[in-house]
């Protein structure tokens, strides 16, 4: 039986749902199928031998045309004759006919174009925007306490001689403690973020060099010794960057 030259109006995804599985075996009611049967009778084997490949199951696209009553009369008669003997194709044709009836009875209407377009734009405004990297806030740390400028510092904890301690206010009520101590002929910058903190990157850079490190689990950092000069200390968190613009490493 010849295939209809016209492609079905149904989308491929619908046809796939009605397409028989490649490895499926006919239920047994079909007398015209060429299928692999473990125990074929002699009569059936003889019949299979005389059958042409054209007598296989009716293609789904042709069944769709049949269900839509678009097949030419000779083809329609052939399909009807096949359906009378093949349970699987008959079931498939019945399901397709039911689907056509449901589609014809569907009185729902399309959403207005501007409503659809607004929903389409949602992807760009919400999905893609949320995955794009967000700009970091850049804030300056405010010096609250500097041990080098204190005449008396009874509240300061005991620190080694020559160590300078500073306390800065940073974002979200957090504080930054910075210690500058002499080490290996230079100055070591160490400290800790006091408050809520989930890691970050610390950079100190100046005319005499630069160094960087990561905050540890306690949000502490310790940079390698740097020569005495004026530096800038930057702490980079997930959504905010805190800068101490002037950090003078000196005795």
């Amino acid at each position: 039986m010849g295939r209809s030259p016209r492609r079905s109006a149904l989308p491929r995804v619908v046809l796939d749902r009605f397409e028989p599985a490649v490895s499926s075996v006919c239920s047994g009611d079909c007398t015209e199928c060429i299928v692999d049967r473990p125990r074929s009778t002699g009569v059936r084997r003889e019949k299979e031998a005389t059958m042409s490949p054209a007598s296989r199951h009716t293609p789904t696209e042709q069944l769709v045309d049949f269900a839509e009553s678009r097949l030419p009369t000779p083809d329609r008669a052939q399909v009807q004759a096949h359906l009378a003997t093949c349970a699987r194709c008959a079931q498939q044709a019945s399901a397709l006919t039911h689907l056509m009836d449901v589609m014809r009875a569907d009185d729902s209407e399309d959403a207005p174009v501007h409503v659809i377009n607004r929903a389409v734009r949602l992807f760009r405004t919400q999905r893609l925007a949320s995955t794009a990297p967000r700009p970091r806030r850049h804030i300056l740390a405010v010096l609250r306490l500097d041990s080098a400028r204190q005449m008396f510092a009874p509240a300061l904890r005991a620190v080694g001689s020559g160590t300078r301690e500073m306390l800065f206010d940073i974002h979200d009520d957090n504080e930054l403690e910075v210690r500058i101590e002499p080490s290996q002929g230079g100055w070591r910058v160490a400290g800790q973020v006091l408050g809520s903190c989930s890691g970050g990157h610390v950079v100190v850079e100046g005319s005499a060099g630069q160094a960087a490190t990561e905050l540890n689990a306690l949000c502490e950092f310790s940079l390698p010794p740097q020569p005495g000069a004026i530096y800038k200390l930057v702490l980079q968190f997930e959504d905010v960057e805190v800068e101490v613009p002037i950090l003078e490493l000196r005795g």
Partner: protein
Amino acid sequence: MIEASDAALVRACRRGNEEAWEALVHRYQRFVHSIPRRAGLDDDAAADVFQEVFAALVQGLDKIDDPDRVGAWILTTAKRATWRPRKCPMSIHCRTAFWWAWKSSTRSARRWMGSTSDAGNC
């Protein structure tokens, strides 16, 4: 892309494919629109439900366990959005007038209330 399965479209959307999202919206637009309309909501309320469903979908793409059943997910979300009490669209002046009408309980006030176009929305 138009003929891809629901699961393939959802997975493509998860990867940031905007074309797949557009195909998904067009595939389900009539379905989603019909739910509030059949429930008796007007055009504006149906458009709100439509927007709400697809906004929930775009935000929940990664949370859908079975992408093949995105249609069922959409159906459930659309039904919930349809039956959720909607914000009263009346203006403050209109609400004040309604309050006066109920308080006075006069026949003329109730008749006026019944003729107000906003009456059926609340």
